[in-house]
């Protein structure tokens, strides 16, 4: 055990020194992105409004795919833009993957809607619940990043103040 510790201690110390020399702070995951958060909040609002409209339309023409395809086009374009932004941000793979999955879910609903011409009430509620699960997962991570980023800024400000 002692021998094992003796072997791993230099590696640990070297890692800590490397971290200290290279950046002072480690970054395993990208910081909070206000633009992503705001844009995704808009997408969620549009999605909720879309499902409420579909639930109100029932089996009338207003619920048909053709009358609603602009929602899919607009939402997929927005999600694709957000995905590109996340993919271009270092250490943002988890956030990018979540946006990708949200976009895929919108595409799946679109395919079903187009194929079946209209969605029945039970399926609309199921799809709405499903999208909410995805949005909740995304915003839970964003909230964690937001809290952490705010904490880091406070700590950095305190450190700068202490140096003066």
């Amino acid at each position, binding site marked *: 055990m002692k021998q094992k510790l003796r072997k791993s201690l230099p590696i640990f110390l070297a890692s800590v020194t490397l971290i200290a020399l290279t950046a002072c702070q480690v970054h*395993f995951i990208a910081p909070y992105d206000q633009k992503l958060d705001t844009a995704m909040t808009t997408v969620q609002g549009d999605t909720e409004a879309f499902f409420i409209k579909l639930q109100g339309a029932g089996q009338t023409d207003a619920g048909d795919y053709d009358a609603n395809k602009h929602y899919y086009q607009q939402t997929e374009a927005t999600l694709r833009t957000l995905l590109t932004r996340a993919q271009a941000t270092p250490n943002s793979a988890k956030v990018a993957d*979540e946006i990708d999955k949200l976009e895929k879910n919108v595409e799946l609903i679109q395919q079903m809607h187009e194929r079946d011409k209209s969605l029945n009430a039970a399926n609309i509620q*199921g*799809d709405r619940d499903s999208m909410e699960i995805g949005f909740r997962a*995304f915003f839970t991570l964003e909230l964690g*990043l937001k809290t*952490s980023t705010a904490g880091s800024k406070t700590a950095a400000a305190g*450190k700068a103040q202490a140096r003066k």
Partner: protein
Amino acid sequence: MDVDAVIQQMLAAAKGPLQQYWKAAGPAAEQQFTNIAQMIKQIGIDRATQTITPQDAQDRLQMAKNNAAMELDTIEGLGELAAQNAINAALAAVSGIVNGYLGFQLI
């Protein structure tokens, strides 16, 4: 279909691959498997009344799988964030001592 039995079978199968993350990921995984099992039960009811096609059933199952993956992404992301914050806090805690000892700002 016995939903509870299906959930338990899925949990038992997932515990192996998720073993080291089970404490953090277990409750979310259980919630997702519950959603999937209930969805499969509803698909059975909808098929009996001819209100869902097999293709739509597959697409809805794929949506549930995507949601489960998103939940795991969130758990992993929060884990990375916690590790990052712990290391940064540790370095920040000793920065004064280390920098004073060295005579220059290392940390």
